[in-house]
Every structure is written in structure tokens, then in C-alpha cells.
């Protein structure tokens, strides 16, 4: 009876939308970590994307240009991170945290003139008869194009890492940068590309929030989405499809708890909102217990600095 008002198709549809921004950011970070770099600045790059995407979408009035701008905005911050960690050899954890703080502050400044403006609408993709299929149509085929492109991106990353030569080189760099270097691969160049890709993805994730999900700019609007994305990468043990499953799970928890509340069920919301982090801590504990490390797939050189002379 209480569940009567919850429509599973709508739940599924809402879950996909809720998962998209964190999935975009997570898939980018997954590639970064696969190359052996830990960038904790996802939140900062996301908010940068949310802000730049919004500013650029509002000015010429096109959401697509906005998304391109968001990717560029995320990449600019990522480039700063790459400069710090790859060229200047700074600590990755500290640089990543700094990047988040810097991004939040910079966007608060840049976005000041843009509070309270409505962005151009991103249309839903018209999938014709597909969207009329009972249940499936409502659940899967009435989204904006970004939702589908995100799924495609997950597939592309999976294929890239598993089947392409470049992807294997990237994994080699992440697993053992000394060996990759000895084989003649350019460790820093590979990592630079990975970091930039991560920035672009985080930027797109942020823009999904400011241009579609919330459709407005307010400073600090990502409210921790970047951290969930980071948690997601570990949760997924660095596998693209698992990251997608995890994102849908996290998104599902959020959407389901809202639906249950609206239906009048009392649920422990605080515990649910803690759950992504709790699960991540659990996974981290498993990883750090040596033997499990390999099976959990953590890149061998993750968060280890590389200098060609060493």
C-alpha cells in the first residue's frame, strides 16, 4: 500500500539522472588512477565544470557549447594539477586537496554574476517509438543525450583500457612506472593525458548538475559529489562497468530514500547518506590488507611519484 505511489519505471529514470554526474566524474578519475595518479581534486574540477559550463552556455545560449566549455574548464584545473604533480613533483594528495579548495573559491568568484540566471534548456533526446514502450520507455528512453553518452563513455573507457595498445600502455604505467619507463614509454606524457581526461570528465559531470539536474548556478552546488565519485572508483575496484553499477547503486539509494520518505515511510536517512563512504572505507580496508590488494585491482604505482632519474 505505501509503495503503491512509487512507480518503478520513474524510479529507474530518476536513478539514471541522479547517477550521471557522479558516474562522469568517476570514470574520469578511474582513468587517472589507472595511470597511477591519485587526483583528489575531483570536487574542485566538477565545480569548475559546473561554473564554466554554465557561464559559457548562458552567453551564446547553447547547452552543447556549455558542455564543451565545462570540459575545458575541468581540464584547466587538471592541467594545473599535472603541472604541480608531474613537473614540479609535489605531493599528489596535498595538490588534489588544494585543487578542490581552489576550485570552490575560484568558482564562487567567477560565478558571482551568474546566480539566479536560467540556462538554456537541454532537450530530451527523441527516441521515437522506443520511448513509448511500456515501462522500458519511461525508465530508459526519455533522457537527455548526456545520460546515453555517459554510458557510451563507460563502454569506450572499458574497451580502451582492455583492448587498445594505448590503453595497455596506460595500465602498464599505472601498474609499474619503472618497468614502463624501462620499456621506453613516456610515463609523464601518458599521465598528463590521463589527468586531462579526468579533468574533462569531472567538468562534464559538474555541468550536468548546473545545466540539467539543477539548471542553475549557485556556488558550492556540487556539495560533495566529487568525493562520492572518488569513493566510487575505489568501490568499483578500478573497473569501468563496476563504476557504472556503483554509480547507479549510489544514485538508486538517494532516489529510493526520497521516494520512501515521500510515501511516508520512516527510514534512517543519515545512515543511507553515509553509506557510500562507509562502503568505500570497507573497500579501502580490504585493499590495504596486502594479499587482497592484487585481487582488488588497485594500480601498483597509484599515488607514487615518478622521476625518470630514479
Amino acid at each position, binding site marked *: 500500500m505505501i509503495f503503491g505511489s512509487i512507480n518503478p519505471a520513474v524510479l529507474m529514470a530518476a536513478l539514471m539522472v541522479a547517477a550521471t554526474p557522479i558516474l562522469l566524474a568517476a570514470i574520469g578519475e578511474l582513468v587517472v588512477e589507472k595511470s597511477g595518479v591519485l587526483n583528489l581534486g575531483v570536487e574542485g574540477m566538477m565545480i569548475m565544470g559546473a561554473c564554466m559550463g554554465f557561464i559559457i552556455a548562458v552567453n551564446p545560449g547553447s547547452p552543447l557549447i556549455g558542455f564543451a566549455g565545462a570540459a575545458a574548464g575541468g581540464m584547466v584545473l587538471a592541467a594545473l594539477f599535472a603541472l604541480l604533480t608531474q613537473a614540479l613533483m609535489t605531493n599528489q594528495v596535498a595538490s588534489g586537496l588544494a585543487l578542490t579548495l581552489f576550485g570552490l573559491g575560484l568558482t564562487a568568484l567567477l560565478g558571482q554574476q551568474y546566480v539566479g540566471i*536560467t540556462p538554456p534548456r537541454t532537450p530530451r533526446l527523441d527516441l521515437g517509438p522506443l520511448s513509448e514502450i511500456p515501462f522500458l520507455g519511461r525508465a530508459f528512453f526519455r533522457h537527455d543525450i548526456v545520460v546515453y553518452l555517459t554510458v557510451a563513455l563507460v563502454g569506450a573507457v572499458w574497451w580502451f583500457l582492455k583492448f587498445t595498445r594505448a590503453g595497455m600502455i596506460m595500465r602498464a604505467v599505472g601498474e609499474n612506472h619503472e618497468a614502463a619507463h624501462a620499456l621506453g614509454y613516456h610515463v609523464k606524457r601518458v599521465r598528463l593525458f590521463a589527468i586531462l581526461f579526468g579533468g574533462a570528465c569531472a567538468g562534464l559531470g559538474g555541468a550536468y548538475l548546473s545545466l540539467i539536474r539543477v539548471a542553475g548556478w549557485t556556488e558550492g552546488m556540487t556539495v560533495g559529489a566529487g568525493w562520492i565519485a572518488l569513493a566510487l572508483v575505489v568501490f568499483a575496484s578500478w573497473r569501468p562497468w563496476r563504476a557504472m553499477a556503483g554509480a547507479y547503486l549510489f544514485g538508486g539509494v538517494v532516489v529510493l530514500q*526520497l521516494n520512501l520518505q*515521500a510515501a511516508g515511510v520512516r527510514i534512517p536517512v543519515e545512515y543511507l547518506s553515509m553509506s557510500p563512504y562507509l562502503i568505500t572505507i570497507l573497500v579501502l580496508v580490504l585493499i590495504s590488507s596486502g594479499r587482497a590488494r592484487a585481487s582488488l585491482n588497485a594500480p601498483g604505482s597509484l599515488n607514487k611519484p615518478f622521476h625518470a632519474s630514479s
Partner: protein
Amino acid sequence: MKKLLTAAVFAALATPAMSDDPTKVGFIYIGPVGDFGWTAGHDRARQELQDHFGDAVETSIVENVDYGADAERVMTQMALSGTDMIFAASFGYGPDVNSVAGRFPDVAFQHATGYIQDHPNISLYDARFYEGRAVLGHIGGKMTETNTIGYIASFPIPAVVSGINSAYLHAKAVNPDVEFRIIWTYSWFDPSLEADAAETLIEQGADVIMQHTDSTAAVRVAEDAGVMAFGQASDMVDFGPTAHLSAIVDRWAPYYIDRVQALKDGTWEAQNSWMGFAEGIIEMAPWNDRIPAELQEEADALVASIAAGEYHPFTGPINRQDGTPWLAEGEVAEDSALATMDFFVEGITSEFPN
């Protein structure tokens, strides 16, 4: 999560003060001044305060200050740098205000919507939001066609709970079939969560959305979905010209000016002020044209009678959710009961969160 603290000092223009040093007034905010809601309301008041006193007052703000260690650090810093009066504009700063106030007895602390007053240099002030919520309930109850009103609530604290109860009682009074669906976000400001919550409520049949959270996301979602909504703390009509029926607008300025004047006169002392329509601390945003003229008049009359003290939104008979009597026929709720309210009234179907 760490938040960047953005501090800005709005110093008076470079004309040297004629007599005394300017009174330094600091504000700490839980959200950004650009939230177009709660924090924006306080910052409007700060600007009015600055305009009112001109060079005689120097105000400074720190936004996005988390409860706890962050807030203590910011207020300590303010006190150390010679601030005479600190406005802490959020409920959760209570313990921090009391801890800092104990160490700086010469600084006057003003804590919004708080309840802890351990030191003689802490004043508490609050607005009777439930008065405004009664008006929202009355309008919402009449405007809803699906007889379902969605309510996005932040934390189950008395101010929010009494708001839900007040809105429900007045919606129910004009529409016996009305039903409330309530979502707690456990956050004051999370635009994407508020947007999701609004979508969920609309999906479950709500055609009027009320919110006790600070972002404008829900109003925007309502506009897109073609349903109605009420803004929060500020007039949010720009975010949903069709959807936005009205909003309870906070006007702290008269109180802020009064308190700073008292400090300048040396008459400032700790108080506990709870102000509503009568004092002009809250007012209703202009009615949307889609509200029928007759209903607008009813709403105006309701505001007037509350302001005049002729009508109290919590007038018995009112039962608690479990059916036990709370207020007898004609009995009016005590302020102390409202300030500690931790139960739903009869008729609300959602369970009360623990």
C-alpha cells in the same frame, strides 16, 4: 568536507570617521550569500544596516561556515580583531556561539534561531515562521487540485516541525482532503538533492511544493513540471514566474538596526526575541496573479489578523498525530511549546523522524 571560507570586508568609504571609531559588526553565514534564500535574507539585512548607519558601522561577513570548529575559529578571529557584535545566522551555531562568547565577554553575540544562552552577552532572535507557514497552508490547500502537497524539509528541529504543522493545519482547514508528503533532506542547502526531492514529490502526485531548505532548485523544478511552489526566505519568483505562488520573506533589517543602535547607546543587553508579522520581521512575497483575487484577500486578511494578534495559528482544538489531545478548544499554544515542538499534529500521515 572542507569548504573554502570566503571573507570580504565591506569597509566604509575612505572618509575619516568624525567622532568615534565605527562599530564593527561581523556576520557568519552557513551558506553563500548568493543562495537566494536564507543567507541572502540575512545579507540583505546587513546591507540595510550598513546603509542605515553609513560610516558609523563597519560590517564584515564570512560565508559557508560549517558548524563546529570552523564556526568557532571564525568567530574567535572576529572577536580578536576587534569586532563589537557578531551575528551568527544559523541554528546549529549554538554550541560554538556559547563557547566563544564565554571567552569574549565584551563582544555582543546575536544568535539566530538558537536556544542556548549560557552567557549574559548572548542574545537569541528568531522569526515566527509558523505564522507565514499558516498563510502558505491556506493558499496551498485551496490551490491544490490533486489534494497533495509536497514538503521538502531540512532537519526535524522545532522551527521546521512547527512550520509543517502550521501549514498542514491551515491547508486542512480549507481542504479536508488535503494530504502532505514530506521529505527530509538533512541539509539546509543541497540544490541537486532538493531538485530530486521536488521531482519525487511531483511524481507522487503533489502539485504544490513547499520547502524549508534554502536553494531555489525546487521552485525551478516545479516551474518545469507545471506545478506550483512556494519560495523560502526570499522572493524566488524569478526562478519560477508561473509556479511561484508566494514566499515567506525574512526581513531581519529592522531588528539588526535596533540591536546595533542599542549597542551604540550602551543599552544592549541579552534578550530572547521571537518576532513575526507584527514586528515586520517576516512578510509575504507578492501573490502570484494565478491566485484568485478572493483567495488573495483571504490571505491578506489572515496575515492581518495574525499581525494584530487576533488569531494565533496554533489555536485548539488540536490533537497530536497519535490522537491524544494537545490543545483544548480555544486554547493557544505557549511559545515554549512551539519552541520545542517535536511531534506532528493529527492528520499528517508521515511518521515523525527520530
